[in-house]
């Protein structure tokens, strides 16, 4: 018989013996009815967010890379442990290999009151194409923006023409027409906040999201 006291004491003894005290676990065999949740760094930039695993019996907060908890029916999530990288790969290697790449955004700028790209942005178009071609089944969204010079209705049209111009450039470079959508946000979503009627080159842009 294991009393509640010895159940609590055993991990402490194990912890005293182990060099990396209680933080590093040896992965346990999969047990029917048991869930495992692991926090992972984001694939594209390595940042680690947060997750809370909870049920009626308790909650465990995951804050660090490979922080993990196990949950069985009718029990609180176990205290945080760190799952070794090898175990992450063993359990999730296949799933991670099938995770689509994170979306990428490219911003192209335009000459004043014009649908012509700035020379620097014309050069950036090649990078965008490269990113699209590397992706499985790419979706591309092209959103046009203007600065606050002129009335909003005309700016909506100008932003749309900018987006369509970029779409045409992408199609001319070989992208599939069905994969490239356009939208206009007019002057409503400036990158740099300005008063009305302000000539601001940074706001005259098209944002291309590749996913």
């Amino acid at each position: 018989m294991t009393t509640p006291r010895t159940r609590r004491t055993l991990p402490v003894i194990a912890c005293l013996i182990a060099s990396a005290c209680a933080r590093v676990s040896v992965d346990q065999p999969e047990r029917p009815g048991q869930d495992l949740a692991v926090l992972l760094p984001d694939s594209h930039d390595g940042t680690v967010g947060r997750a809370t695993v909870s049920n009626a019996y308790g909650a465990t907060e995951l804050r660090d890379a490979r922080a993990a908890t196990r949950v069985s029916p009718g029990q609180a999530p176990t205290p945080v442990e760190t799952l070794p990288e090898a175990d992450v790969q063993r359990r999730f290697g296949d799933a991670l290999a099938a995770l689509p790449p994170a979306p990428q955004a490219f911003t192209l700028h335009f000459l004043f009151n014009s649908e012509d790209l700035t020379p620097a942005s014309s050069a950036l178009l090649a990078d965008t194409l490269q990113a699209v071609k590397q992706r499985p089944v790419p979706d591309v969204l092209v959103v046009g923006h203007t600065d606050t010079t002129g009335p909003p209705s005309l700016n909506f049209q100008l932003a749309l023409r900018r987006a369509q111009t970029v779409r045409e450039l992408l199609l001319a470079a070989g992208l599939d027409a069905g994969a490239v959508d356009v939208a206009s946000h007019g002057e409503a979503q400036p990158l740099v906040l300005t008063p009305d009627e302000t000539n601001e080159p940074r706001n005259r842009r098209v944002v291309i999201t590749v996913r």
Partner: protein
Amino acid sequence: MTSDRPSIIATVLSVALTAAAFATVPLGAQSAAAIGRVKIATGAAFIVRAGATLPATPGLRLLETDSLETGSDGRLGISLNDDTRISLGPDSEVALSRYRYAPADGAVALVLNFIRGAAVYASGQIAKLSPDAVRLETPSAIVGVRGTTVALHVVPE
């Protein structure tokens, strides 16, 4: 009557376009809007929709309440309209139980049910706009996220 014509044309056109977009899915699902697409599929990988099992080919459009399933050699990766990404290893199942992404109306929600096997969730705009609108459910717990990647392994009883 004349004034109604543009809206009738628009309706017919949109039905036609929707039908074209979902030409490969069973009848009955045609009026629903796509919430994302299959991006990566290898081995035995399926979408279960209203009781029918469709092969998960890259490019296939996904609908709310679709289930993602893989067999013993399957892998499946999808991306949703808000940039949320989900992938499954072999012998796994995840249901897209609820999905709303209309940020202009303030309507965002994502509920995923992790039923069995190994899966990875990488957060998108919904988690950024409204973290509480995202719920990852397993048989024994609910996972709430704050902009992140989470891997879940579920061994059914």
